[in-house]
């Protein structure tokens, strides 16, 4: 589904992504792990079109999307959330999700009837919020939410885009430890139900092991290892980078 070939991104003289090559298959849930500063978020930014790469090639469903606009990528089915939550601060929680749905269904040009008139879409937005467990907060403004709820809202907005490939940048950071697995359960079951492929950046190795089919280990801008979670975590070089253990 997604093919990344020898992708390079330089910021000035610093090479953040250094010839990364990997693939994500249909229906697959992949996790991307790596130490701080490895370039994980940059990789998400490159795939989602938030920033352009220096060289390399990104293919999605057989189309070259290396330099296409974020708009085109979203219409093709690439959606993302944000690690540092990125919400519409002056719109209610419901509207945050609803605007994503309006965008998905191509209704953002409708300018005569009030948004509430679109009952089916409003209901669907409520359902999505319900699924993620924050529908009771639908009339609040995002700044009044807890950090964890903001994060969940951010993810549910990305989910509302009904993409084929979902990029989740640390969906559980800021979420209370006890709720992490609940949130992941929600995300993963939703992703599986919609038959999406998904790439998750995650620091919690338990989550990586429990929820994902495959792990990509990124360090200094390169893919160091690629394989099943259990096998990968046994490798010495991975242990050294992720846990600082030498054996």
């Amino acid at each position: 589904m997604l093919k990344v070939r020898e992708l390079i991104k330089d910021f000035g003289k610093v090479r953040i992504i250094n010839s990364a090559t990997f693939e994500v298959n249909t229906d697959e849930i992949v996790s991307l792990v790596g130490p701080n500063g490895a370039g994980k978020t940059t990789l998400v930014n490159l795939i989602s079109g938030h920033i352009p790469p220096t060289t390399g090639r990104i293919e999605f469903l057989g189309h070259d999307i290396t330099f296409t606009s974020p708009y085109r990528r979203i219409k093709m089915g690439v959606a993302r959330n944000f690690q540092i939550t990125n919400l519409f601060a002056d719109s209610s929680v419901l509207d945050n999700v609803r605007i994503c749905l309006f965008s998905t269904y191509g209704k953002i040009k409708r300018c005569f009837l009030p948004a509430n008139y679109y009952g089916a879409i409003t209901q669907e937005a409520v359902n999505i919020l319900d699924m993620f467990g924050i529908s009771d907060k639908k009339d609040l403004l995002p700044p009044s939410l807890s950090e964890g709820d903001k994060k969940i809202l951010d993810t549910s907005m990305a989910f509302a885009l009904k993409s084929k490939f979902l990029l989740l940048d640390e969906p559980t950071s800021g979420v209370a430890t006890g709720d992490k697995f609940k949130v992941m359960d929600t995300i993963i079951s939703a992703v599986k139900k919609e038959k999406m492929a998904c790439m998750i950046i995650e620091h919690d190795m338990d989550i990586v092991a429990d929820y994902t089919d495959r792990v990509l280990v990124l360090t200094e801008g390169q893919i160091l290892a690629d394989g099943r979670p259990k096998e990968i975590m046994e490798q010495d070089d991975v242990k050294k980078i992720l846990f600082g253990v030498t054996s």
Partner: protein
Amino acid sequence: MGLKDFLLKPKFFVYLGIFILLMFMPKVLPIYQLMLLESGITFAIMSLGFNLLLRYTGLLSFGHGALFAVGAYSVGMMGEYFPEMYRIEILIPVALFASFVVSTIFGFICVRHTRVFFSILALALSMVLFALLVKLYNITGGSDGIHIELPMMFGKSYEGVKRFEFLSGAYYFVLICVFAASTIIMLGIVNSPFGKTLQSIRDNEVRAEMIGIRIRRYRLYAFILSGLFTGLGGAMWSFVNGHVTPEIAEWVFSGEIVYMTLLGGFMVFEGPIIGAILFTYLKLYAVSFTQYWMFLIGATLITLVLLLPEGIAGGFVKLVTKIRRTPSTGVA
């Protein structure tokens, strides 16, 4: 569903009440006051458009005077060059078309930037139009402007009728109907999916782009819509004023538009309407009161910004929420 909800809200009855009240104004107000009210209403139509950009898209335009002038001048020039088509049913669409064309051009250039860069670009473009209106005096009448004759309205000619009779008669009712229609349409726009899209761009353009909104294009749409309302206001104003001069394209008038909106309170939908009507009276009374009227206007603005930053409507809304909250929670 949405419409029914709205019809049951108390707000709707307030609107209806105001509309009916306005209907009786020609019987109550002396003609001089009525003309002031009429020019206030035309400014209100314009400020509705202005606030679509400021409140809902987050773009502060310092060049809306130019778009207002386009509406007013298209009426004037139609009278000059196509007198046989000088009917209000034709003039309004022509004014709308002219403002559509000009605001598309202006918008195309301006929406490449936001914040102060947008404001300055809009200001610069409006001054270009101002210069053209002054310099092309063969076409536009230069700084003398153009006299606006009374138009034909629905097949009825008003030749020989005095302007004040025209303004306190049929035209007044046409004006408030146009005003009511603009208010309803704008209310629809700001609550529609399109309006929500604009607000999401205002709140967070990075995220807006990442949920599949082409932000520049939508800013342009907002600019054009805003220009249409402004042009409509300009066209309706030209009949009230009876004369159009290039001054309305100058930055001073653009500044007054911003002032009106701030006076009423741009965070509330109805704010700019209140501001526009109030400003008309404020300015006139300041002028008649002292020759240093600009000082008075400026002092008002300073007081407003310091004491009532949300404007009159914003302050009122705040007061109401405070009063409502106090008894239920018991906390002042």
